[in-house]
């Protein structure tokens, strides 16, 4: 699993990246009450808006940490947004992207680097 400075995680299997928000991000947001995911087929570039996640208090953008085509959106988190808090780095995933440029993944932080990054916040 790789991590972005915007607190998204990426797990790659066979050229497909599963993307979600980190446990740290979910904790900062608090109870998630609404999730908006992109349509399947949408092309995104790294840094583009990918999804929106809302707590009672505020809406936050989720950015695409890597580029690619959305091939699946996780319907259960739309129906049960609290899944994002209960399991942010497993069943609370947001989308699967067919990677356009697998090298982008290598530019992200590994777990140790991300944990070190969290210490600086």
């Amino acid at each position: 699993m790789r991590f972005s400075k915007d607190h998204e995680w990426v797990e790659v299997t066979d050229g497909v990246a599963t993307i979600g928000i980190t446990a740290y991000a979910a904790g900062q947001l608090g109870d998630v009450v609404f999730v908006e995911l992109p349509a399947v087929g949408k092309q995104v570039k790294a840094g583009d808006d990918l999804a929106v996640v809302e707590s009672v208090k505020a809406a936050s953008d989720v950015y695409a940490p890597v580029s690619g085509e959305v091939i699946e959106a996780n319907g259960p988190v739309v129906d049960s947004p609290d899944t994002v808090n209960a399991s942010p780095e497993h069943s609370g995933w947001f989308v699967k992207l067919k990677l356009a440029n697998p090298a982008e993944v290598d530019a992200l932080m590994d777990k140790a680097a991300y944990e070190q990054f969290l210490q600086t916040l």
Partner: protein
Amino acid sequence: MSAATEPGKTTPLTGAHVALGGRMVAFAGYDMPVQYADGVLKEHLWTRAHCGLFDVSHMGPAFLQLARPSGDPDADHAAVAALLEPLVCGDLKGLKRGQLRYTLLLNAEGGILDDLMVGRAVTDERQGMLQLVVNAGTKDADFALIAAAVGDAAELIRADEGALIAVQGPEAEAVVSAIIPEAAGLSFMTFTPALLDDHRITLSRCGYTGEDGYEILVPAELAVPLWTRLLADGRARPIGLGARDSLRLEAGLPLYGHDLDETVSPIEAALDFAVSKRRLKAEDFPGAARAVGELAGRLTRRRVGLRVLEGAPAREGAEIADGSGAVVGVVTSGGFSPSLGAPIAMGYVPPTLAEPGVALGVIVRGKRQAAEVIQMPFVPHRYRRKA
């Protein structure tokens, strides 16, 4: 997700919030807890079911004291009320002893400068005094305006160096009366002086969550001991500003600086109840002629409640559209209602679209979502008024 900012002002309870895991944010110049470890959703629901403690010491409690009381209690009340009435649209002369009233501080155009609570003193010897509580963000301007208006006829005594603790929820009476026995006998929108550990305190039965509850004004040195005693009752938990906002939204209560500002009149804000009938008839408050005209139908906008029927919460600034898609208004506060499990909002629309049942839309991130005007409050008030 966090920004380095200038350290804000503290309250006598700041250390207690940090010790409880409060996430501190800048609010109206103060560092205040937006939430504790439980988070906004749980804190909100706990307050509706049990009892929430809120530090509202950033607000502006004050006393307006007649400089030269005559000693005649009724004459002194009438005199101090007459000094403040020209600035507000409420009936202050008609207050009973120990009664609180929600009123509005107005500018010359009848726009709302602040919303505030005013109470008439209880005892004979204090009848030349009114108790005020104004909003945090506006308190310096409010106090300057009031002090200038009353001149040397009265003195405005700020009490915001102490602590103001709000205790709200269906179990608030049980929690507070175990410590302050006078609490049980108070009716909603009344207050009384009381003694706590040999200190004089002011206990008001009021609040801004839609629940029964109290606001307790204590000297700074009593703040931590009282907060600690209240928390020791397992029914009470600390609640941050995040849940305070979602609670007042569900209760249909406007928030100054968001739902109310100096361009908005009391009638536009649907706060007709706060405009005294006597004073409307006499047209003796700022913007009275405007209020008379608005009540006669010359109204361009009205604050309404909206149930958002699909999609994301519509937050402050979201446009409101009519059936044809034309933009007809704007959301002034909105979010997710924990009690209803659905998004709700309040905003301003033309009066022809302000009736419950009118189908409207809210525009969130460029997409139209169905919404409907509904009668506020969104969640019924549960104030306890004694006979």
